[in-house]
């Protein structure tokens, strides 16, 4: 029997049920594969200058030989010209790879990892704090959400937390949090309600992680100063170690130094604030030069933190004159860690003075650069 069982409408319906296929590659790794991002506007310029210089040399030396009386000299001249021509060719060959190293070996343009003001437009930036696989550090992951219409930031936060790909990012599967988050306009608090069978109270690391993440999530995404805790609608959450807690005070997170955290199986580090705060920005910069509590050193620029100055929320930071700053991915991450640390101390812009290089990745070091809105941008869809 050969009979169609499907109408056009049914086929349409089946087509709509086709699976959503996603590109699972890490956006940063993917971006690095783009061979073009920063193209030299005048690729012919350096070889041309080199050729012109070589021709100029040729003329100068050539004139000297032409001035000579004997044919032997003429012979020498032609020999010299020949060798000069060879030099020119060699020079040309030498110049090209040199030019390439300026924008990074193998032509890859280093990329930034944080979110900056000009990228946000009408979207909203949401930051989720996610534990690493060893539950040692909490990593801030930020995303820009577009097309929000009339939704509040908390609505978007609730909606998107089910879509986080923690495992793919080399982090611990923590979200969605088994709790409802609601903003209580009357009390000006975020009310966190867990079900009766929640497991956040079992084990000290569980409860510490839960409380810290709630604090950091609320602090990063709102100005709310207090979270009230509920279990199944009744006040308080019982934690194994600390007993019943009814509320958590939310302090703004400030004065931390940003260091690197390398997740397993990933090459790119996350920029992560130190656990402890620092008294001043100089100490924070110093702390970035060493590994600390499972985080790796993030300062790969030879900064002179003792000579820094601050004017109108702009940080002026000199670097060693003879320091060789590379235009590579590690340096870009390091510079972003510097910007984020500066932000922790209320800075809005940073100027590197005496920079021996004009550009690192997307950052123009001849100008002041704004501090990021949030670290570690990832797409959530």
């Amino acid at each position, binding site marked *: 029997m050969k009979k169609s069982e499907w109408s056009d409408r049914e086929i349409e319906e089946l087509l709509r049920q*086709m699976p959503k296929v996603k590109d699972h590659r890490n956006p940063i790794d993917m971006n690095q594969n783009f061979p073009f*991002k920063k193209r030299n506007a005048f690729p012919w310029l350096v070889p041309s200058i080199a050729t012109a210089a070589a021709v100029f040399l040729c003329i100068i030396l050539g004139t000297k030989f032409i001035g000579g009386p004997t044919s032997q000299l003429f012979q020498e001249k032609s020999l010299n010209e020949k060798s000069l021509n060879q030099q020119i060719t060699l020079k040309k060959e030498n110049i090209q790879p040199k030019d390439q190293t300026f924008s990074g070996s193998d032509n890859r343009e280093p990329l930034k990892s944080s979110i900056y003001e000009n*990228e946000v437009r009408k979207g909203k930036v949401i930051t989720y704090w996610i534990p690493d696989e060893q539950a040692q550090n909490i990593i801030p992951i930020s995303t820009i959400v577009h097309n929000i219409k009339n939704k509040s930031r908390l609505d978007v936060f609730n909606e998107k937390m089910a879509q986080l790909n923690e495992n793919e990012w080399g982090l611990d599967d923590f979200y969605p949090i088994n709790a409802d988050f609601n903003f209580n306009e009357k009390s000006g608090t975020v009310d966190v309600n867990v079900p009766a069978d929640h497991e956040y109270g079992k084990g000290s690391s569980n409860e510490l992680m839960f409380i810290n993440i709630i604090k950091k999530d609320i602090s990063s995404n709102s100005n709310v100063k207090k979270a009230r805790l509920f279990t199944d609608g009744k006040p308080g959450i019982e934690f194994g170690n600390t007993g019943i807690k009814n509320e958590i005070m939310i302090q703004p997170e400030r004065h931390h130094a940003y260091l690197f955290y390398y997740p397993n199986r990933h090459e790119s580090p996350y920029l992560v604030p130190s656990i402890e705060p620092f008294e001043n920005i100089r100490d924070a910069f110093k702390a970035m030069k060493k590994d600390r509590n499972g985080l790796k050193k993030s300062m790969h620029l030879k900064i002179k933190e003792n000579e820094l100055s601050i004017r109108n929320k702009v940080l002026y930071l000199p670097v060693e004159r003879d320091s060789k700053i590379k235009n590579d991915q590690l340096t870009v991450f390091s510079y972003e860690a510097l910007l984020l640390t500066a932000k922790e101390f209320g800075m809005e812009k940073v100027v590197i003075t005496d920079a021996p290089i004009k550009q690192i990745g997307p950052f123009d070091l001849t100008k002041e650069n704004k501090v990021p809105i949030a670290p570690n941008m990832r797409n959530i869809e």
Partner: protein
Amino acid sequence: MDSVFDELYNKYHQDVFQFLFYMVRNREQAEDLVQEVYIRVFKSYDRFEGKSSEKTWLFSIARNVAIDYFRKQKGWKDKLMEKFDWSASQVKDSDPIPEEIAVQKEEIQWVYKSMEHCTMDQRAVITLRFIHDLSIAETAQTLGWTESKVKTTQHRSLKLIKRHMETFYVKEGSNSDEKVRVER
């Protein structure tokens, strides 16, 4: 900073990837072609005039990239000829089914297999219309066609898929006594 480019990338690259996946029917190839799409976007986004939406503009570039890919394919003429030779192609089942499709119910797998028999244009229309949920007008804008051409192509594609579904039903589904119906 190429913030506009970055935004185009962050906002749409999953859509572009999915479109290419259903066009070329191969994850690795789609990954490579996404890169090609964004190279073209990078070369031309400063000239983008905003006459169409960013999304339809990106889809139109992705479609051109997919067409170029098929042109470069060895033996593409043979593949094209098979499209016209119904008797030769109706039992063809050459490419392995991607994992994402293989885990779906049988009818979805048949739809996917049937799409292989569509022409590039037919595949583009049904992918944009039903998988990406674009309107007739948006699809027309993406393909640079009139709306009536989109409707005609859509109609023909659905007929073609239906015909192949019948064949799959006879070939693979007739062993089962259950009547094959779409879950609504």
